[in-house]
């Protein structure tokens, strides 16, 4: 078993979901890491919702442009063929179904595939930013999150935190498992290298369907 930081396992697995030609929006946090583990054979367009398609890696030290940032306000580069536009266009792309895939962080996902990722009432109220539009409008939604936080499963029976959308997400990737959804149930699709099904179920509050064969993730 290769020992790997949880966020690296998650980002590397999700990177394998990206296909050439896709328009992809990566959220803040673990999702941002996905770009780092993308195979050089795969050419996608990354969108930053502050108004950029063709987002590239962070610039080398000293080469940051003050008017070229990602949605977290961090300096980025623009790849050849990049384009910039205003926020109405940017969210038209998102809501209008032009974004093929979004990867977002999560506080909770429940059995029905609902994502909660924008506030913890009374504690942390960052606001939804672009997350509600992304979950509503992107063709495919992947959640990147750690399986549990402070001992509590983040994959729950029913979200106790305010949901981001009533739309069911398509895939959840944690450092332990890949989980998809059928019409009625979440299904355990893959397990992390060296992790057993029993270990996953122990850390999962939601009721998971477990097929006879659950293959290991390819990273």
């Amino acid at each position, binding site marked *: 078993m290769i020992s790997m930081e949880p966020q690296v396992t998650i980002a590397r697995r999700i990177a394998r979901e990206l296909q050439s030609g896709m328009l992809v929006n990566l959220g803040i946090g673990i999702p941002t890491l996905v770009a780092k583990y993308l195979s050089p054979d795969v050419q996608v367009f990354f969108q*930053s*919702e*502050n*108004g*950029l398609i063709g987002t590239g890696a962070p610039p080398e030290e000293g080469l940051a*442009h*003050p*008017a*070229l*940032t990602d*949605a*977290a*306000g961090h300096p980025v580069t*623009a790849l050849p063929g990049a384009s*910039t*536009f*205003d*926020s*109405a266009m940017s*969210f*038209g792309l*998102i*809501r209008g179904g032009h974004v093929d895939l979004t990867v977002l962080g999560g506080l909770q996902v429940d059995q029905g595939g609902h994502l909660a990722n924008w506030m913890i009432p009374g504690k*942390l*109220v*960052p*606001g*939804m*930013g*672009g*997350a*509600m*539009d992304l979950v*509503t*409008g992107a063709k495919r939604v992947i959640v990147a999150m750690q399986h549990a936080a402070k001992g509590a499963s983040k994959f729950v029976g029913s979200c106790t935190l*305010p*949901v*981001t*959308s*009533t739309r069911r997400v398509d895939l959840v990737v944690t450092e332990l498992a890949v989980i998809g959804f059928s019409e009625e149930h979440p299904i355990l699709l893959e397990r992390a290298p060296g992790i057993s099904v029993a270990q996953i179920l122990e850390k999962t509050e939601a009721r998971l369907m477990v097929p006879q064969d659950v293959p290991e993730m390819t990273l």
Partner: protein
Amino acid sequence: MIPDGASLMIGGFMAVGSPTRIIQEIVRQNKRNLTVIANDTAVPGVGIGSLVSAKLVNKLIVSHIGLNPETQRQMMDGNLDVELVPQGTLVERIRAGGCGLGGVLTRTGIGTQVEQGKSRIEIAGTSYLLETALQADFALIHAFLADHTGNLTYALTARNFNPIMAMSGHTVIASADNVVPVGVISPDHVVTPAPLVDFLVGNP
């Protein structure tokens, strides 16, 4: 020019593309009880964050305050009224306000806390939320190039909310990195046409 109690739309995304000099002047003049409509409040003391840190704002309509703990603190203490709006809905409400529309219909927010107090409208079997238009007394925006008539172009991701807000402020005050002679910005490259801009603040 801007009185106490004014409503302000302010461009920028995490302070990138915010009219920093205009904001600094409002802080210097200590204008109070402001309503601010913007994407975010940046970080404490920076861009729109400097209005919040100086306690000049009593109502905010924004999509994200996660990187400004001072905004969150004033909100939790009950000193700052914050309406959180999904970013795509926020920009469309502002666009509607400047385009003569009463509002927009969006699927974003259906079935979430954002739906509270709003009408649901069904069109061809799909439910939408009715989100009403926003206008403000002033739009404070920032451009890369401005010519002497007030035509504006923007740089890279510093464009964001600026050209949308230029349509929906009753008085539009723009600052620019560079003020250039008429003709430098070709008609095809003008993003905000001159008649929309009431006042231009150059870069000394």
